[in-house]
């Protein structure tokens, strides 16, 4: 497995995050913001409950800005510097490169998420926490991050401008977060059949994350996020194949 093209490329990608200050800046900002949100906006202490609900509750909003920032360069940069031509003429298939790049970025996010462990220690120190529920919430948060990331990567494949990739990803992710809310549903209700509106409402990141963040492991939510990731990655493959020449 060590010599498989996917793991070689994954290693290169993951190292490249840490080759520049980007990775460290990202992790510091992520930790600072989760701290601020949890303790100040989330009233962690005032709630007097030994759980991490205020911590996980803010993840969808944090990811909305931070994950497009990671995803924006994944293909746009390759396209801009021309390394995409180098990469795709190496003996590695397109789907292998897409999987490797996704896994590398996802692993990086997992590292950032793992760095929030003091939160977990704090809550265990202060009270009798349900560690099973916390673990489930972490898994749920990581799955949701994968959804944001796959969408952002796919949009990054559409352009050579990182700024455009960032903004478009942010908007697309926002629509997915808000999909179950009147803000989005009302817009489409007028001209789409009810069945599709309901299906769209069921696509919300937020609704699917809610149960997971409370520690309830519902297979449907897991399947939803995995399917989301697979669909966006598949779309990336199609887009890259189509837009290589540009």
């Amino acid at each position, binding site marked *: 497995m060590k010599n498989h093209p996917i793991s070689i490329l994954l290693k290169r990608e993951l190292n490249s995050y840490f080759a520049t200050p980007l990775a460290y800046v990202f992790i510091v900002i992520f930790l600072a913001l989760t701290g601020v949100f949890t303790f100040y906006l989330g009233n962690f202490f005032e709630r007097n409950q030994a759980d991490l609900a205020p911590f996980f509750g803010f993840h969808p909003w944090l990811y909305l800005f931070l994950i497009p920032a990671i995803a924006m360069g994944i293909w746009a940069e390759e396209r801009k510097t021309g390394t995409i031509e180098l990469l795709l*003429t190496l003996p590695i298939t397109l789907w292998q490169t897409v999987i490797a790049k996704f896994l590398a970025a996802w692993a990086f996010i997992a590292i950032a998420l793992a760095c929030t462990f003091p939160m977990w220690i704090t809550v265990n120190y202060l009270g009798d926490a349900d560690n099973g529920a916390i673990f489930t919430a972490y898994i749920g948060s990581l799955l949701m991050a994968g959804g944001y990331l796959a969408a952002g990567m796919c949009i990054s494949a559409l352009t050579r401008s990182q700024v455009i990739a960032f903004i478009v990803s942010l908007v697309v992710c926002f629509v997915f977060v808000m999909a179950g809310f009147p803000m989005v549903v009302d817009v489409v209700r007028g001209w789409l059949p009810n069945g599709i509106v309901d299906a769209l409402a069921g696509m919300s990141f937020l609704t699917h994350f809610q149960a997971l963040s409370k520690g309830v492991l519902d297979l449907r939510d897991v399947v939803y996020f995995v399917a989301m990731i697979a669909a966006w990655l598949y779309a990336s493959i199609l887009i890259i194949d189509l837009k290589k020449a540009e």
Partner: protein
Amino acid sequence: MVEVQQLTKRFGSRLAVDQLSFNVGPGEVLGFLGPNGAGKSTTMKMVTGFLQPTSGTARVNGFDILEQPLDAKKAMGYLPEGAPAYGDMTVQQFLNFIADIRGLSGDFKRARMQRVVEDVHLTQVLAQRIDTLSKGFRRRVGLAQAIIHDPKVLILDEPTDGLDPNQKHEVRHLIRNMSKDKIIVISTHILEEVEAVCTRAMIIAHGKLLADGTPDDLAAKSRYHGAVTLKLAARDEAARVLKELPDVLEVKNEDASNELTVFPRPGAAVLQSVSAMVEQKRWTVQALYQQKGRLDDVFRQITGGAAA
């Protein structure tokens, strides 16, 4: 063996490569010549499996680039236009990555890394990030990654672009040295490069093959082929006299210095009669030589003055 069959690429309504077919065998260094936008890079991008042809295909070492792309890619080394590389890696890391993904390992990998780094003169920059390198070094890193697995087929898109004359000389020397048992295809618009390294040249324009032969064959199509150039003080007198010789089509004063060129009629030779006349008239000549033909002349002639 590289076999290109009816290769065609259409971008929207623009036909970039139009039913191009040719074969290249081991030991050949093929130079792709053509004005900018002639379809050289597009052809290379299809042969290396980056772009999907609109129709037609290419076989590399017996592997069809559409049906067995991985095997074909393994047999090839490719330097894309502009020598792209991952700027955040050091030269060592980058070459290591390429070697790994190309499946090199153990002693063979170590030996190839060392050999390539020496051949391309990268020892002093191994620990530097590629971002910080000069254009010349970057080009050499691109060349190093293309040859690291000792490929049978080497495709180089403008390998000497942006190099200084010494570096150009070095890269050409390297290409010549590797050419014995390999198939090398280079694209260029520097004509002296074709004369310096290529055993065969192809001129393409608008995606079509216009000429194919050894550089000498092509040069022989030039009107300068067999022409005699001489340099002497009594130029005007000589021009008048030489024009009257049989077999002379035209005598032309060259812009620079005291040179004039005598063009023969097609199929005729004028060197003997010109030198006989020089002796008879007792002109003092500083130079007298027969031209082989000029590639740039042929290039302009064939591509209709659209030369880059």
